């Protein structure tokens, strides 16, 4: 499948961009056992950020939205050089910053600052507000004498902590959550940065204060022309704040585009689910029921193909079905039935852990007193009972042999971030090639079925 892909990865940096990220990967090694470490073998990687590309234009607010574990915080920290990038490029005002030394980065940090989530944890309890807010001036040795105090007071008043004299000598413990977050913002802007990374700046605050902090940040942007990277799990606040939104799932951008387009017409099934799940203070609504099952998977063992496929209600043949999904499906089924029926079905199958691998071919061992043909008959009946279950579309063939059943899934196709209308989306539903490929495979499955092979109960059992 080779078509011209208008991938952001290949795109030249936007002229107006102050930050350009291309093919960025941030992997963390997993510490294996003592023995593994002794022989210098690594136990694998957590792909916290996995091939991400985007531009941040001057004066723009880009929202990086995802659930916990999506890699949004790591991405922000990599951008600031607080975490080392594994691969890829980040340019800031045209200058490559991956691989920079700490000394070079420090100079750069005058232009990029961060506001953290927890205002209670981001101020040193032993420093007065004046010391905390003025600390960056000291670190960068920018001012002398009375100028120092004047700059601190100015920053405090800019963020609404006025009159500044009232706050200079206070300690963080004397301030409320909202006031602390204002002080943190004052510290972030005191060096007149170009870019502010705001990592969940309001999620620890009460509803009644969130609007005030968001308003402050918007005002600062208008007054000083800051560019923001707004990292959040909350699509509702992002709607207010952001010009563009990037939806992150398990280290990858699955949808990116102008806010208006994303909220009016979300494309990716994950974006749709996130929007539907936000509780609305409207009593005519009830808790949404048709949401994706399960939770964001372990980034150390990402699913094959599209990472969202195990939870996706619209997944089909090529989305990356694999052995583990079959286990999840069986367990979900068993969670919905009585104990007796579960025991009976469970006994048909041997060691479930045998299914705990990541491969498009599964070998399901039969139980102690059952045979492969029993397992196959069971799987076929499960399939008949839930014909809408997306996983079954991914099954290419099931064959019983002696003591086990072979389940063969369609080979995964890796999704690509492709333009769709105003946005870019990484989903096979919008990829002509993937849809065509799925069609072809469906034809193969059907003809195999007609020739008397599985997925119907087969007589190939030993």
């Amino acid at each position: 499948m080779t078509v011209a892909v208008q991938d952001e990865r290949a795109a030249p940096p936007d002229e107006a961009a102050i930050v350009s990220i291309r093919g960025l990967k941030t992997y963390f090694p997993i510490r294996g056992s003592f023995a593994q470490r002794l022989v210098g073998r690594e136990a694998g990687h957590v792909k916290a950020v996995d091939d991400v590309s985007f531009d941040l234009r001057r004066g723009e607010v880009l929202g990086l939205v995802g659930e916990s574990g999506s890699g949004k915080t790591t991405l922000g920290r990599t951008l600031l050089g607080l975490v080392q990038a594994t691969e890829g490029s980040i340019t800031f005002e045209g200058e490559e910053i991956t691989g920079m030394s700490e000394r070079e980065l420090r100079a750069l940090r005058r232009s990029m600052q961060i506001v953290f989530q927890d205002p209670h944890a981001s101020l040193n309890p032993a420093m007065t507000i004046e010391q905390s807010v003025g600390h960056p001036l000291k670190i960068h040795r920018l001012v002398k004498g009375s100028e120092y105090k004047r700059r601190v007071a100015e920053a405090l008043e800019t963020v609404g902590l006025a009159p500044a004299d009232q706050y200079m000598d206070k300690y963080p413990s004397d301030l409320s959550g909202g006031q602390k977050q204002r002080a943190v913002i004052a510290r972030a802007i005191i060096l007149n940065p170009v870019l502010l990374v705001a990592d969940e700046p309001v999620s620890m605050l009460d509803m009644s204060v969130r609007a005030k902090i968001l308003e402050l940040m918007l005002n600062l942007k208008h007054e000083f022309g800051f560019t923001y990277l707004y990292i959040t799990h909350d699509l509702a606040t992002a709607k207010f704040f952001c010009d563009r939104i990037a939806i992150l799932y398990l280290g990858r951008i699955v949808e990116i585009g102008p806010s208006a387009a994303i909220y009016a017409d979300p494309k990716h099934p994950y974006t749709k689910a996130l929007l539907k799940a936000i509780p609305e203070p409207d009593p005519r609504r009830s808790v949404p029921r048709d949401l994706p099952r399960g939770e964001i998977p372990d980034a150390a063992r990402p699913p094959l193909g599209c990472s969202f496929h195990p939870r996706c209600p619209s997944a089909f043949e090529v989305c990356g079905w694999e052995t583990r999904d079959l286990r999840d499906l069986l367990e979900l089924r068993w969670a919905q039935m009585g104990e007796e029926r579960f025991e009976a079905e469970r006994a048909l199958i041997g060691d479930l852990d045998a299914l705990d691998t990541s491969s498009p071919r599964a070998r399901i061992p039969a139980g102690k007193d059952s045979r492969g043909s029993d397992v196959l008959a069971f799987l076929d009946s499960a399939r008949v009972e839930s014909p809408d279950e997306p996983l079954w579309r991914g099954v290419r063939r099931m064959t019983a042999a002696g003591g086990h059943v072979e389940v063969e899934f369609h080979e995964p196709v890796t999704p690509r971030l492709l333009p769709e209308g105003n946005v870019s989306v990484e989903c096979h539903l919008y990829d002509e090639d993937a849809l065509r490929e799925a069609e072809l495979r469906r034809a193969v499955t059907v003809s195999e079925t007609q020739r008397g092979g599985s997925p119907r109960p087969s007589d190939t059992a030993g």
Partner: protein
Amino acid sequence: MTGDTVVSVRDLRVYYGTRRGPVRAVDGVSLDIEAGEVLGLVGESGCGKSTLGRGILGLLPEGAVSDGEVLYGGRNLVGMSPKELRRLRGPDLGLIFQEPMTRLNPLMRIEDHFRETIKQHEPSLDDRAIRSRSLEMLSRTGIPPTRFRQYPHEFSGGMRQRIMIALALVLRPKLLVADEPTTSLDVIVEAQILSILADLRQDFGTALLLITHNLGIVAEACDRVAVMYAGEIVEEGPARDVFGEAAHPYTRELLRSTISLQTKELHSIPGAPPNLIDPPPACRFHPRCPNAMLVCSSKHPIERRLGAPRRVSCWLHGPVHEIPEDGTIPLEREQIAVAEEA
């Protein structure tokens, strides 16, 4: 809803002793919770909503003093001995916390958590019966029976909260207090958990007191809502009515400041919730209230019924004959500095 009152709270007060004086976290709260209903308790942090939840269950920390009545099955839980309370907890009263990981013992299998819980109250039950009761409850919360023998760390955050709910419900309590049960969870998982809670109270007739700061959750998941401010209930009624037209200015302002996808403009409440050692006199909300009148700073509001199921404590709703002359003149408020906020 069956209309049977499970718990009646009457003039409950819970004070915490501090060096600077008592913190009046719950100050004269009355509430009824009925079988099979979900009552949402909302308010800003520090308004006393968690303390109220714990006060109802008799689970207060040392240094807390409570007074008033929590009537359950004809008995007052306030002042009951710890031993008697312990007997009620589980089969009668249950609690679900915010952080599921910290409430499960990392060294115990899920199976053992259930065994311990059930044995505590029904020592005669054999392993077979314990297992089938646990599995039934787990399956209702969507935990596969294959994972019964696993340890807490083998589960995700949402799964752990499902396990906590199953553990709390396995003894079929009449009242379940859920204190911010979804706050540490992602939004999709939050909706999953809320729909499980909604199903369970319908199936078991359990009364649920859902404590949350999120008005969206109350609107979607609760039958009734009680709004708490500075240790007092300022408004209570059917969720539909309260959200349709809030009677108390605090409720209205809280609703306006909630940011949701429907929000058209940002709004916030000026000022901050008061310190509960020395709360403002009369109506505690008057320093922040856009509708404050002279009377609001001099006389504590009188609770008014607005139709049978609704009540509100606000002078805007009278009674007129209790308001002194000139009492309705708008209160000149001191300018609240931006920085004075929460």
